[in-house]
């Protein structure tokens, strides 16, 4: 990697945030006009326990430089127990990623409540720094990505099929 | 460095944030020395809030704080006023602002250590009273002290007095060095 590339490189990080705690915390960071790097794209999910490991692997396969899974504090889950499962999966996921040649430091789980706007800002900032230091991920599966191409016809047919349900 | 920068720097070094203080007055209320102070600990924090570094550096408070830490202990926001006062005092000394009586005592004290390695109370009190122009202070205790042989008249330096002098000299040089690096 050349020096210029290193300095201008902006990683893209995907964050799965639960609707009740972290997504609310992220909104609060906005309300408080806190500033953080623009590297993170948030996907809203009802609960961190909804995050299928498949989503994380897919993000890395498509070229994500980092992935975060964020939920309520253990014990405070809106759905009582969802984030306990997230926590267990997280440990396993790190091993799976390592096995697949993805630096486990690209994957982070954080517990951020709806009132912890500053914690959200700090977490995002920190992960962005860590991932930036690692450089671009070398895991993009190009063949899949190119074959993916969401043709509108495909969408249409699936919609019609599902719409009929 | 401008004044605001200096103030911020002193507060940072003492790990004190002026916005933490909401002026409840619990510190000055419990400060044993407050009655003799001009600003008192709350006044010090108030001055810091409005950026009045000058009034802090020229206050008697920074010289009268006895470092008992009762204020921090009771502060609802854990504002470490004595630590900030200590930093302010160093800054005052750097600018040559001193309280005469404190300066005389502290210099005499350190000269004492330089000479003997330990503090020699008789000489300390004697020299202090002479230089501070207070010949009668505590004089009434003198006969008792002498008659009960509480104060040895002949000073007796420790063996490592040279070592002590070297340490003090190095420490003072380090202090200057640190200050220069910061600026």
């Amino acid at each position, binding site marked *: 990697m050349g020096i210029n590339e290193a300095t201008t490189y902006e990683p893209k990080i995907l964050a799965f945030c639960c609707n009740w705690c972290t997504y609310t915390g992220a909104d609060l960071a906005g309300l408080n006009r806190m500033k953080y790097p623009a590297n993170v794209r948030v996907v809203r999910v009802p609960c961190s326990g909804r995050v299928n490991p498949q989503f994380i692997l897919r993000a890395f396969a498509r070229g994500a430089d980092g992935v975060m899974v964020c939920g309520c504090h253990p014990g405070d889950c809106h759905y009582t127990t969802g984030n306990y499962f997230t926590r267990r999966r997280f440990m396993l996921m790190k091993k799976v990623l390592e096995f697949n040649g993805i630096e486990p430091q690209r994957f982070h789980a954080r517990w951020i409540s709806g009132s912890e706007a500053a914690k959200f800002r700090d977490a995002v900032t920190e992960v962005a720094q860590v991932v930036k230091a690692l450089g671009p991920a070398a895991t993009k599966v190009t063949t899949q990505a190119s074959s993916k191409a969401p043709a509108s016809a495909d969408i249409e047919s699936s919609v019609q099929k599902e719409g009929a349900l | 460095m401008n004044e605001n920068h200096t103030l911020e720097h002193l507060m940072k070094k003492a790990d004190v944030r002026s916005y933490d203080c909401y002026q409840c007055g619990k510190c000055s209320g419990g400060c*044993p*020395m407050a*009655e*003799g*102070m001009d600003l008192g600990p709350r006044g010090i924090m108030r001055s810091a809030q409005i950026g009045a570094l000058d009034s802090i550096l020229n206050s008697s408070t920074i*010289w*009268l704080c*006895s*470092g*008992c*830490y*009762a204020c*921090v*202990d009771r502060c609802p926001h854990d504002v470490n006023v*004595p630590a900030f006062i*200590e930093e302010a*005092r*160093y800054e005052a000394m750097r600018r040559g602002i001193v*309280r005469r*009586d*404190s300066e005389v*005592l*502290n*210099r005499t*004290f*350190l000269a*004492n*250590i330089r000479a003997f*390695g*330990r*503090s*020699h*109370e008789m000489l*300390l*009190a004697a020299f*202090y009273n002479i230089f501070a122009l*207070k010949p*009668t*202070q*505590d*004089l*009434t*205790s003198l006969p008792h*002290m002498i008659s*009960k042989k*509480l*104060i*040895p008249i002949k000073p007796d330096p*420790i063996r*490592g007095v040279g*070592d*002590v002098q*070297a*340490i*003090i000299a*190095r*420490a*003072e040089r*380090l*202090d200057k060095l640190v200050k220069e690096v910061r600026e």
Partner: protein
Amino acid sequence: MLRYAYFPGCASESTAKSTTLANEFVFGAVGIDLVEIEDWCCCGATSAHTLSETVGLALPARALSRAERDHPDLDVVTGCASCYARLKLANYKVRTDKDAAWLVEKALGRPYTAKNEVLNFLDILSLDEVKASIETAILRKFKDLKVACYYGCLNIRPAEVTGAKDRENPMAMDEIAVLTGAVPVDWGFKTECCGAAHQNDAARQTRPLTARILENAMAAGADVILTACPMCQLNLEMRQTEYARKREEKKTGKKVFPLLDMVIKPEPQETIPVLSLTELLAIAMGAGGRRLSLDVHHVPVGGVIAQGLSGMNEKEVREAFI
């Protein structure tokens, strides 16, 4: 046998004569070996750190580093609150603040790792095994002797350095004093600063706070104030004539020439004797007044001891102990 590296402090060589003698007696009697740190120097007290941060850390660190070199397995102990505060702070700073540790090592010119603890006498005397030894070493008990235990601010604060849990109404000293039969009173100035540090350079400001401590102890019905520090001890008893005179002046409105304090002594009920905790323990353990040089006290202590030790009148006590 418990062993500690011992930092006596400058006062031990002069004004704290009787306390030093009592320390030796008590620690000998309960079987604690205090090994004096070889060629220790002054901790710098209030003045050194007032003038320079690094000098204020380097002076106590010199003694501590010598203790660490000569007695690598021993914790350091001192009987003076002021020394304790400086030694403990140097120890704490070296442990927690990398910059400070670097400065200290550069100033000393040799390493100091701060791996051993710094303790004060109260820490040691409060150990359960030591308390048991004290109980067996006590030969005679005081009766109805009311004591006000004065801990001194620097033995207790700052909490983050000393780790003291109860900073407003500590009980460690009260619990030791009880062993001698003395009755501790509940009073309000256990950990209030006595102003010793500024008695020279800010006399006008500090005198009232010392007087307030004495008055509160007297109002609580104490016969004697117990201290855990020779500086507090000296400061609390040294100017009692002056305070008594000022109270009198306030009452009558008549001024008296200050130097007359040398000859005109106040009534005993206007003053309160001040003993160090180890002096009280030593007396209970059978030490005589002469052996402890109790006559060095500015406020005579004989009467109080006589009153406290049952079965003796003041004259007998004076002959036997002083």
